[in-house]
């Protein structure tokens, strides 16, 4: 029997130059991030410090958490434009509930628990509706989630009266802003509270809850996408809906699950925001909507589906966070900064095209 070998069909003779280009395309986002960090470290005093890097991470936490949800949906070939206002809605719901319970005098731990649960339950609903619209009614994701954006925004503004909701129990801002470890010169290391009497300026806090939540969410997301059936089916759905159907995957159910996951992660982002800013705001996530998609795209995902990795989204989110902070630290005139992210996205698309050209060889 004749064997099928590939030598006659595929000319895989790659020159070393092509291999170098191929490698560079795969890691260009990392290289770019590294280059940004290097440039800013050299030119902006104060950039290359633990405090500065930690602040970048903390300020990126909501964006990355929301972007991780977006990653799932984009890999499957969809998109969720409602994430920003789902985040705002959940932030408002949690804050309203916690304010009411706090003013009624309930113990703080209980108030926090009820607030978080209420937020997650409310955040689940837009995910369910998005999933139903897209999977059952076959609505295009762009349109369906755009509609949900409006609905979430409406409820967020109604519940909050358009105002930021304050008067949260102390535990909220403590969880959002206290560090786990405090390091001060000439003082022993303390936990959860700065060393008493120390000059706050010289104290360095390490690790906050938002940062930890961001890290754990990234690790779990990576695990699910790379190592579970759920992740595998997500990639399959993005690669070929037909193949997935014929393989017996319940495509409709899986699609619904993906949009629910995305909404729940947006909700988590909203809860983190509420803790960090000690309040609930309907517009908390307004600026994050496009940034979440940008992070996923810069990280190498294709908007047509089938490609994408959690690490890519992480790098994408950090490229934007590093850019925002570094340009401010260098006091670059604000108007120049506005376009920075746009340029990066264009670069991501170009690199993707260049890499696809090489891969086709």
């Amino acid at each position, binding site marked *: 029997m004749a064997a099928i070998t590939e030598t006659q069909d595929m000319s895989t003779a790659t020159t070393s130059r092509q291999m170098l280009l191929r490698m560079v395309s795969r890691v260009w986002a990392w290289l770019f991030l590294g280059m940004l960090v290097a440039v800013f470290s050299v030119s902006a005093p104060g950039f290359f410090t633990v405090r500065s890097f930690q602040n970048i991470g903390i300020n990126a936490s909501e964006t990355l958490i929301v972007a991780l949800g977006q990653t799932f949906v984009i890999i499957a070939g969809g998109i969720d434009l409602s994430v920003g206002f789902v985040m705002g809605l959940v932030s408002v719901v949690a804050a309203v509930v916690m304010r009411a319970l706090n003013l009624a005098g309930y113990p703080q731990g209980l108030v926090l628990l009820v607030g978080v649960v209420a937020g997650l339950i409310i955040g689940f609903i837009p995910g369910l509706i998005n999933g139903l619209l897209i999977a059952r009614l076959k609505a295009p994701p762009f349109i369906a989630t755009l509609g949900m954006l409006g609905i979430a925004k409406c409820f967020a503004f109604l519940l909050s009266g358009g105002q930021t909701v304050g008067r949260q129990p102390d535990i909220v801002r403590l969880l959002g802003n206290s560090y786990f470890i405090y390091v001060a010169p000439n003082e022993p290391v303390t936990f959860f509270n700065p060393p008493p009497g120390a000059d706050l300026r010289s104290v360095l806090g390490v690790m906050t809850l938002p940062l930890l939540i961001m890290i754990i969410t990234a690790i779990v997301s990576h695990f699910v996408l790379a190592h579970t059936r759920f992740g595998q089916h997500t990639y399959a759905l993005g690669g070929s809906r037909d193949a997935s159907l014929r393989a017996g995957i319940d495509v409709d159910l899986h699609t619904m699950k993906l949009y629910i996951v995305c909404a729940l992660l947006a909700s988590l982002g909203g809860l983190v925001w509420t803790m960090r800013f000690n309040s609930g705001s309907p517009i908390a996530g307004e600026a994050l909507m496009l940034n979440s998609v940008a992070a996923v795209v810069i990280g190498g995902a294709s908007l047509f589906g089938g490609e994408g990795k959690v690490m890519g989204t992480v790098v994408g989110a950090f490229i934007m966070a590093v850019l925002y902070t570094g340009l401010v630290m260098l*006091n670059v005139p604000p108007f120049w900064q506005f376009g920075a992210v746009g*340029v990066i996205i264009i670069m991501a698309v170009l690199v993707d095209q260049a890499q696809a050209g090489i891969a086709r060889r």
Partner: protein
Amino acid sequence: MFRWNRVWQWTLIVVLVLVVLAPTALAEDPAKKPNFAFIAGVNDPFYITMQRGAQQAADLMGVNLIVQIPETWNATVQTPIIDAMLSRGDIDFMFLAPVDKEAMIEPLKRVVDAGIPMLTVDTFIGDGDYANGPVTFPLSYIGSDNVEGGMIAARALAEALGGKGKVYVQNVKPGISTTDQREEGFKKGIAEAPGMELVGVDYNDDDAGKGQAQTAAVLQREPELAGIFGTNVFSAQAAANAVKNAGLSGKVKVVAFDATEFAIQMLKEGTVDLVIAQKPAEMGFFAVEMGMAYLHGYVDIPKRIPTGYAVITRDNMDDPEISKWFYTGQSD
């Protein structure tokens, strides 16, 4: 013959990288003068004018003024800017217009914890009473009394209408301390005049197009409408445009809050009849002054420094004492 191949693609990528990094060449060289950080609320002529006043004081007093402007009016956007300023490690004083009176409390606590004295301009956190209110760590709140400003607008409009008529308010979004207070003051002022009636308040989300559409709808709905109050720059522009497009310039009297070039232009044309100018340049100048005072040990800074208003009409707009309060849109 030019062919778009991968060489050109990679060249373009390299060029774009350089473009992204080029602005770093514009980064300022910090001098030995004290560094004062000023963070505006959003990009608009009001804050540009404030920057001019601040820069004037900075030049007089030997201060290095570092200015950053958030892309949108949003706490999530303003906070990383503040944190980046802190990370610099060389800021001696900060003044800013906080974009949310609740949410910005935690981020601004970090400024104080870092040992940097700060005050707020134009807007406030907490309730604005830094002496007795829930938030007391900022040094001062320098800004107009917006309730008073709203009342001035109401009284000026009542006077122009002869004490009788239906009026409407174009506002931004609820939750912004300043515009909320202007609305409050306007309502109070209208209540004082028995012949005046408020038919509605709309929120345009700081979107001029939306405001114009809302105003046009009200003009249709209320044929007897006699006056409109626009509570900030964009709101006033939106209302004035709608009035002009409906051909009602002069018949519907428009009171604009904030004296942008556009508002002044409309005043000249007759579409807007009254311009209530704040004094943002004064706010900026005072902020730098107070900062320098504090750094030199003069720490008894008043917790509240109200700045005034100029009421601009077609009759007085050519008087240089009045025209100096116009906001200019270009930064120098």
